[in-house]
């Protein structure tokens, strides 16, 4: 019987969640993007309004689904539904937009409340000259030293793979800690 597991990619508006999933998904990401209507949020043309959906087939019995949450807060009613049964989650943060750090922190806390699953923070757009340093972001996001914050470039497959792998290592470590 085919088994499925899922990982959720969340974060503030325009953090790079759709691009992240697109970089590793074997299918064209099923995206629910709409043109942006709010002037304040017009830093890009479209945004996800329900979810993004990507897939990685592991073998003939196992499929990993990647779900991207809508970034705009008015769609947050979708978050809890998407988080149900997740293996873990990734919080994407745009390293060049410190004005979104507070919201990223809030999203992280919200997801942590949904489920005690492992998570990592992906500091996206680290290739940009105005990107904040990882250590500074850790402090600004008030992340515990045990929480992994990983440099990321959502369009770079290797960087995305690294984030996913680090999350899976955390899941494995937690399972081993739980069984010891």
């Amino acid at each position, binding site marked *: 019987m085919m*088994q*499925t*597991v899922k990982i959720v990619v969340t974060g503030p508006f325009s953090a790079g969640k759709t691009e992240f999933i697109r970089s*590793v998904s074997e299918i064209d990401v099923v995206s629910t993007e709409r043109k942006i209507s709010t002037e304040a949020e017009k830093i890009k043309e479209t945004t996800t309004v329900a979810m993004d959906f990507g897939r*990685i*087939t*592991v*073998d003939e019995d*196992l499929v*990993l689904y990647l779900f991207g949450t809508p970034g705009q807060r008015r769609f947050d009613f979708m978050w809890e539904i998407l988080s*149900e*049964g*997740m*293996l873990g989650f990734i919080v994407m943060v745009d390293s060049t937009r410190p004005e979104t750090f*507070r*919201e990223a*922190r*809030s999203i992280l*806390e*919200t997801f*942590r*409340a949904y*489920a*005690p*699953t492992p998570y990592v923070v992906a500091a996206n757009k680290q290739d940009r000259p105005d990107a904040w340093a990882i250590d500074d972001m850790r402090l600004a996001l*008030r992340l*515990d030293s045990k929480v992994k914050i990983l440099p990321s470039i959502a369009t770079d*497959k290797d960087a995305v*793979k690294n984030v*996913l*792998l680090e999350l*899976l*290592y955390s*899941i*494995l470590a937690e*399972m*081993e800690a739980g*069984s010891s």
Partner: protein
Amino acid sequence: MALKGNLRDFTITQLLNLINLAKKTGTLVIEGPGEIARVTFREGKLAYAQVGQEDNSLAAILLRSNKITNSQFKILKERTSQMTDKELGLLLINAGYVSQDEILKSIQLYCINSIRRLFSWVEGFFRFEQDQPLPEDKISVKVDLENLIIEGSRQLREWEQLQEEIPTLEMALKFTDRPGTNLRNINLSVEEWRVVSYVNPKNTMRQIARATRMNDLEIRRVVYALLQAGLVEIVRPGGAPIPTRMFPTQNKEEQKSLVNRLIARIRSI
């Protein structure tokens, strides 16, 4: 048209602004979280306010503003229980206990503090009872609403920010593992100490709020200060049910095998 609705859609500050601009006379009744508030206005100015069932007799108001002592309060309660506030006020002024100005300022402060409590109410049904006067026995005041509206707007912004920082009260708190931090050397307020005494991964913030009789805003304010000081961190409450649907199988070895297969697959992309 009846002025009624829910605070979710129309905040206290917006209501005060409307009453102020329209110079309304009447009583605003708000059915808030567990208690009812009645705020009376005369021509757009605050005339009286009461929240919940607390003692709002003149004697109790004077005691709160330290104009009379505890023993004087007890005597007044025993001997003047049949008097209205107006009669008691006259008696106290004539006896030289307090001045008229002290009485009015005490009532004014009481009413303003009652309004301040309302600023933390974010949910509750309200209705404005047009021309509903203040009960005859109460002494009314006349407070401009502008300053209260500004204060309320500030508090609303604070509320929004705190809610973003601490989106849910269903999480618990634990002390951070910082060797060398000694709580006794840190200057905490009374409220902070009260919360600190309940910090335990088993207690959710909502439970702590209930135990310390704080509302959602007050508990968030205290927790935020403790978080900023690095004294506590937010954790999932101990004993909370762990979701079982993460994996398609309940067998631990199969779960590990599944994660290892995922790792191998991601590496190969």
